[in-house]
Structure formats: structure tokens, C-alpha cells
């Protein structure tokens, strides 16, 4: 099996006034292609920061990240954007749909950015898969939280990514809706053979992944494999 994500001795600090706060320190781990991977830890442990760095949304102060064969430190912002467009899918806690675009348009955007001419058709299919075919022309504000997260799921898979980053995907949903969304996420992931990296503090959700990376105070507490398949 090959690694899709290699993180070596990663360090990230933020300055707050005159103080420098180390958010991540000496983080090293790898994710195999096609695996499911959870990053867990209490609030402030650096989970979301790590996810942002792995996805190329931010730059590290030290260490290296290799994503889909590209060293992130060697790419400029636009090159990282293109890498995300080609290889990465995202799911966020607060959905992050474009409020002025309909559900269908939201799902089409990643494909349109690639210049695909079947964007609309494929987006419609994906909305069908997440059970929202009849809501495709609704704006995000006209959808419930669960529906919005399903649109976000469809969007995350629309560019057939190699790796999908999910930041607390059920954090804003009730238990029942959250469960449905997670089920859908794992089903779609299995079907597409995508690598899945989830940031969560929900132990049940983490247990459904093959690997768990536990963080505390910006350091790795443990990196374990589970029995999940």
C-alpha cells in the first residue's frame, strides 16, 4: 500500500500579542491510500490546525507534508488550490456552502473549476445519491442542517477526490441526522475508494475508522490501528 499523506516532524505556532503559542509540535504520521483515519483529541489539542495544514489551507513553521506526491512547502498558494481541486474533498462542521448558489450549483463548482462538461449531470446524480434530487434548486438557507451537510457531502465527492478531509462532520447536527450523514459518508467513501481523514471528538465516530491519531496539547498521544474495515 502506498502513502497518500506523509507528515514529518510538523510544527505550527501562532503569535498572540507578544506571546508565541505552539499549537502543534513534532507531529509525524502517514495515511495509506484508501484508508479511513481519525484525528481525535480534546478542544484546543490542535486537531483542526493539523487538518488545515494537511489540506494545504495553511503553512507549517517546520517539518514537511507530502500530499498525493506533492511537497506542500514547494507549492505556492494557487498551486495548492489546484491540488485541492484535483485531489481533495472537504466536509466542514458548519457545512460551508456558498449561500448565493443553489444546491446543484454548489455541487457543480469543483467540477466546473476542472472545466468538466458533465458537471451539472454528475452533480445531479450525486444529489440523487444523497437523497436531495428534489431540492437541487434550493438555496442553502432554504435547507435544514442535515440537508445542507448532505449537499456538502455531494460536493465533497463531486471532483472524485483521492482524499477527503472532514472536520467534525456531525458537530452541528442532532444525533439521528448525524448518524445518517456519517453512514452516507462512509458508504460514498467505500464506493469511491477515497481516503478519509476525519477530525472529531466523537469516540464512536472515530472507532469506525481504521486508524486513530490522538492529540493532546499539540502533541501525539497515540497513533493506533482499529479493527474497523
Amino acid at each position, binding site marked *: 500500500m502506498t502513502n497518500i499523506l506523509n507528515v514529518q516532524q510538523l510544527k505550527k505556532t501562532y503569535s498572540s500579542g507578544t506571546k508565541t503559542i505552539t499549537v502543534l509540535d513534532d507531529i509525524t504520521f502517514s495515511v495509506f491510500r484508501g484508508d479511513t483515519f481519525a484525528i481525535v483529541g480534546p478542544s484546543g489539542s490542535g486537531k483542526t490546525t493539523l487538518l*488545515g495544514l494537511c489540506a494545504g*489551507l*495553511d503553512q507549517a513553521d517546520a517539518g514537511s507534508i507530502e500530499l498525493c506526491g*506533492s511537497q506542500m512547502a514547494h507549492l505556492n498558494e494557487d*498551486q495548492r488550490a489546484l491540488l485541492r481541486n484535483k485531489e481533495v474533498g472537504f466536509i466542514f462542521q458548519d457545512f460551508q456552502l456558498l449561500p*448565493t*448558489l443553489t444546491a446543484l450549483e454548489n455541487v457543480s463548482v*469543483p467540477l466546473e473549476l*476542472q472545466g468538466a462538461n458533465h458537471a451539472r449531470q454528475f452533480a445531479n446524480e450525486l444529489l440523487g445519491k444523497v437523497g436531495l434530487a428534489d431540492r437541487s434548486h434550493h438555496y442553502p438557507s432554504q435547507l435544514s442542517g442535515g440537508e445542507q451537510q448532505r449537499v456538502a457531502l455531494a460536493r465533497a465527492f463531486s471532483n472524485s477526490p483521492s482524499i477527503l478531509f472532514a472536520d467534525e462532520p456531525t458537530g452541528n447536527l442532532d444525533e439521528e441526522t448525524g448518524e445518517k450523514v456519517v453512514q452516507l459518508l462512509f458508504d460514498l467513501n467505500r464506493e469511491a475508494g477515497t481516503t478519509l481523514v476525519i477530525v472529531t471528538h466523537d469516540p464512536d465516530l472515530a472507532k469506525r475508522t481504521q486508524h486513530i491519531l490522538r492529540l493532546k496539547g499539540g502533541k501525539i498521544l497515540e497513533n493506533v490501528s482499529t479493527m474497523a474495515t
Partner: protein
Amino acid sequence: MSGTASNSKAGLSWLLKMAWRDGKASGRRLFLFMASIILGIAALVSIQSFSDNLEENIVLQSKALMGADYIIDSNHLPNEKVQAIIDSLGGAAGREVNFASMASFPEKNATKLVQVRGIEGGFPLYGELETTPAIAATAYQGYGGALVDATMMLQFGLKQGDSVKIGETTFPIAGRLDSAPGSTALTSSVAPAIIVPYRFIEGTGLLQLGSRQEYSYYFKSSPDLDLEEMDKTLDPVLDAEGADLDTHTSTSRRLGRRYDNVGKFLNLVAFIALLLGCVGIASSVHIYIKEKLRAVAILKCLGATRKQSFFIYLLQIAGMGLAGGIIGTVGGLILQLLFPVILGEFLPFEVQLTLAVKPIVMGLLLGVFLSVLFAMLPLMGTWYVSPLQVLRVQEHTPKSSRRAYFMILGSILLFIFLFSLWLLQRLQYALAFVAGIVVTFAILAGIAALFMKLVKKYFPNSWSFTARQSLLNLFRPNNQTMTLLLAIGVGTFLISTLYFTKDILLAKATLEENANSPNLMLLDVQTEQRDSVARNITPRGLRIIDNIPIVTMRVQSIKGRPVDDIREDTTSTINQWILNHEFRVTYRDSLIASESLISGKWTPEMTPGGAIPISLADNVAIDAQVAVGDTIDFNVQGVLMKTVVGSIRYVDWGRMQLNFSIVFPKGVLENAPQFHVLTTKTPSAKASAQLQRELVRAFPNVSIIDLRQILSLIEGILDKIAWVINFMAFFSILTGIIVLIGAVRTSKYQRIKESVLLRTLGAKNAQILKITALEYLYLGILGSLFGILLSLLSSMLLAALVFETAFTPSWIPFLILLPGITLLVLAIGLSNSRSVLNSPPLEVLRKEGR
């Protein structure tokens, strides 16, 4: 990767699609942005288009405006040399003598100062005399009738067949004169025209020494004659003989220049409206883009490059600008149809309006260009926003945006400078205009920053919750203090400056009313008539207030150099009018109220020996390039008189009284051929009319100016000018209000979440309303107060430096503008809270989130 993924495949069509998708869902929020650009462009296009049409009409109608291809005119009958030139040109096709005189209408027992025009030959050679009945335009010549100005006919209830007495001759009225080449409603309202055949002028007995006449000779040229060339060669020769050549091309140029100035002023007012519109663009786009930054971060997360996300919004703004430009241009073209109605009396002809290409292209280009330029600063935010915003809000803008910020700011200033330079055509004015704007913005921004700092430092912790919340809103993150204070301040500043300037212009022309101010002026009183005229006035209990002698003379030499030499010297910078003008000079022993000494020594009376010490008005001294001690020789009707500049005076020409460029001391000109101006003060219009009638009967050569009438005439003209200014200012005011609505309404999206949150926490409607009301009240009062104070300062500078007059500010801006604008800000601000107060919190958040 770096080699393979350097280009995104989504091209222009995707960017346009995204711009359209996003724009149609956000259009409502950009409506005011559109309104700002529409009003600004409409104002500018209407004025530009009308100016272009006017210019074109002047060129097309220049011959009809003059009534000839070219005219030779002079203040006296042509001397031999001028006559020889006239003959060499094949003789004139028409000639005219005109002068001001009193006319009386025996049937109506009325008198009036008129412009008598004695005409002979085919005048007008182009255009026509429009009369009622039409046949009167030619018939009057045959039997010696008079064509009388239409308004005057109406005023005195005159009809065809009545008579008019001019000097010693009585003419039957042949018809009503509706229009003649070259006259405007304005000029004819000062001294309405009466046209009579030239051959009858002698018989009126009015062509005598001292009375001011103008002789004009009208020519028709062959098509191959180069008028420009003739003007260049012949005009200096005629100038030397006290005559003048006017070709229809030079007249159209002169007229063009005159209306160009009017156009420039109006253009500037329109430009101010446009600039206000630009403030509107900047403030509405600022908030709009701020709300879009999260969407931009999402797009970047999904793989959009910086360029792509930037261009989506750039295209959106440019598209809105183009739409605004199109609507504004069409609006401007429709609006220009109103201009001939508004400016009617100032124009010497009917303006034919056509579609001028330049203003249309300008309107469309400016719509796009200004929208993009003024939106660029907030738009740059899309370039620098990090995709990390999706995960967590970042407060700091990257440092590299600072350079872009200053570059854009520089471009905006450069544009304002270049555009005002193009409009005003004077480097100093354009620089002053830009400096004024920069200083105003800087002061207002400084006040806003200082205000926030002071509120923060001396925060009144003991105040009630609502009062504290409203104050907190002024300086906490996402506050609108700077944007709103700038928008309110600049808007109030421009409107208030326009008001104060109008005040300065109008105040300059008011007549001082006191016992010593005359209201009747008797001109052309011959020396031998002086005592008998006075005897006619004083028995009525009226006083002769002034008895001003006038002697006419020309400059013979300046500092020893004959004027002929100076004329031929191409390097001389002495103003030509000094060399050619026939000066009307008086002599007296003291300064009058409108004068003050600038330099030298005032000599009341001539002492024997040496050159005569005279006093010059400062503008004459500048134009003649002389200082105290320099010599000037005058030709006083054939007698040479050596003088020396004894003093230089400041003269307030704006005062309604007889002012003089040159004043001699007593004891020099008493025996020179002269005429007199007498003034008196009549208690009523009726007494004035009666006195005028009797004086005209006894002294037909004396012209009488009724200052009361002139004043009401001037007031009428100023009212019309004020109307035009107000009409244009209306655009600025309307755009200002729209900017205000835009700025306040866009801040709605900042406040709405906080209000909903407060409501969720249990705040009552009245509390939310009070917090909002107080916040906008502070901003309204502060913005409008400092806007007015700044305009007061700039108006004082304008009064001192440009209009050179004292300025007593009116209280109206403080009493009306200050509370008016504050209330407007308050009303718009409170209307924002309506949706928060009337709906459940969640519904509001969902609706506003779109």
C-alpha cells in the same frame, strides 16, 4: 505537481457564470450601488451632452448669431483710414448705429431706458428679424416705423400703430420685435431694443458729444475668403484706429468660451455628484465584499485560484457598473432635454439637440471604470483572504495588501486629478480640487479615529445598558463609524458648501440700503444741462446725491513708450484692452465707499507744476503693468496730458454704484469737454416714474437708469442662476442621500446578528430600538456637524481667495441641514431594525444569511 497544475481549466465563461449566479442572489444588496452610479453618470452625461450640442450649435449658427460673415465696429464714426478699409472690402452690406437712450410712449404716459438700433441696408444678412406681423421686418424701413421689443410691448400694453418718442423724433410702432440676431432675453431685459431706420437717427438729436454709440458695418464674404487670415492681418490695423473686426468664426469661439465656463461649472457640480456616487460605490462594495470573504475562502478551499475568486467579483462589479452606466447615460440623455428650458433666457438661440457620441461613450466607460476603480480597495480583500478562514476567522489582513492599498488609493487620486483637470483645464484648480478632497477626507477620517479613541478611553461605565451598548457599537470590531462618518461628512460638506457658495454669490450683488444710496442715475447730462436738470429735481424735495463729471480719453503712451510701439512689440505683455480702450475718467478730491488705497498717496487737488498724479484701480495697474511713480500720457480728445501714477486703489466693482478705473485730482479736467452723471433718491416707484417722464420730456438726450428696476432684474437673474445651481445640486443631494442610505443600510448586515442575539437573550424591542437609535444619532450629529464646519471653512477660503468678498455665514445649514441629515440617518438606521423587531430571530438569521 508544480509543473502540472499551473492552470485551472475554468475560464472566462465560468467566471462570468459564477459572477452572474452570485450576483442575481445578491442583487438586492447592490441596488444602492447601482443607484449611486446611475445618478452620477446621468448628471455628467446630461451636462456633457448638452455642452457638446451647444458648442455644435454655436458653430452652425454663428453667422445667424451675428447676422453677417464679419462686422467692423467702432465707438465713433469711422475715420478716413477705417472708411478706406471698409471701401476696400467692397463696402458694407448693412450698417447700424446703436446707443442707450430713454424712450417715451405718449399714449401710455411711460418712459423706459432702451437700446436704440438704427439700421440700414440688408441687416441681418443671415438669420432674420422675427416680427409680428412678419411684414413689419421689412416694412418699417419704408415709412420710418419702429420695431419694439416684444416684452416691452407687453409690459406697457403697446400695440401696432402706437407711437414711441426717441429724442426729438416720434416713430409709429410698425410691429413687435420677437427676436433679432445676437440678442438674448437677458440682454434685452436690461435695455430692450427698438429698431428704427438709420436715416432717422440724426433727427433724434441724440448723437452728440459724450453719448455712447456703437457703429457696426455688416459684411457678407465670398466663400473663398479666409476669415481667420483676414482677422489676423486686418484686426490690428483697425484696433489702432479704435475700430474692431469680428468674424463669425471668432464670435463663435468667444461665445463658445463664454458657455464653456458655464459648462465647466456645471460639469464640476456633476462631477461632485459622480464623486459622491463613487463614495457610495466604495462604501457599499466594502460591506458587500466583507460579507463575501467567507464564500471566497470556500471557493479557494474547493480549488479556485486567487485570480479566479478575484475576477468573479470584479466581473460582477464591472457588470453592475456597465448596467449603471447604460441606465445613467440614457437618463442623462433624457435629462438634457430639460436644459434648454432651464437655461432658455441665457441662450442667444434655440439649441437643436442631437445624440452626441462622446458623452455616451464617456458615460458607459465611466460607469465601468469608476465602479471598478472605487470597488478595487475592498475587492483586493478577495485576493488576500486565506482559505483557512473556512476553519477559523482570521482578523489580520496580510501585510502585502498594504502596497496594493496605496497603489489603488494613488490611482483614485490620479483619476480625480486628471478628470478635474480635463473639466477645468487649469492645473491650479485641479490641484486645489484634489487637495480639497484629500484634506476633507483626512480631517473626517481623523475625527472618526479620534472619536472612537475618546469614546473608548473615557467610556461612561455608569451609563444604562442601552446607552453603553450604543456607544460600544461605535468602536468595537466591525464598527461602521469610519465609513458612516466619511459618507455623512462628505455628503453634508458638499451640499453645505454649495449652499454657502450660493450665499456668497448672491450677497455680493445686494444693494446697500441707506439714506445716501441713490436709486436713480441720470447719464449723459451735458455740462450746460447740469444746472437745469438739478433745478428740475430739487424742488420736489429730492437731493442730488452725486454729481459726477466724466471725461473720455485714451492712453497715448505708457512709461514713455507710445501705444503704437507697444502694439507692434510682440514680446509686450501689456493687456491690449488698455491700449485700445476709451476710458471714462472722473475727478474728485476724496475716495468713495467702494474704494480703498493699496499703495501710493492720494492727491485731492492738483498743485501747480509737475506731472498730474492720478489714481488707478488695481486691475488697470496690473493690466498696464505700471506701479506708483510710472508715467502715463493720455489723449484727452486731442489734448495730450502727462500724468504719473500717484496711487493704486482697490475697487469693489460688485457694488451698485458708479466706479472708475482712473481718477484725476481736482483742478485738472474742469475745463475739458465732459458730461455728467447725477444721482438722486426717489421715495417711491411712482415718484421715480413721474420724475423720469418729466426729465425725458425736458432733456431727451439724458438716459435714466432706475436702480430699483435694475436690482429687481438682477435679483431675477440671480434667482434663475440659483435655480440652475439648485437643479444641479439636486443631483449631489440625491446621490448624497443614496450614499447615506447605502452606507447605513449596508451596516444593517453588521448589526442584524447582534440585534438578533440580544433579542434571543431577552432584549425587548424598545431596548434594541434605543441602542440602534442612539448609535445612528451619534453618527448623524457628528458627521453632519463636521461636514458643515468643514464647508464653513472652505467657503470662507473661497470667499477670501476666489470671490474676494466678506462672508457672513448663514445659520440655515446649521438649523436645517444638521437636524435634517441627522434625522435622515436615524430614520434609515431604524428602518433597518424593522425586520429584526417584527420576526422571530431564527427567521431573520436565515433570511439575512442568503
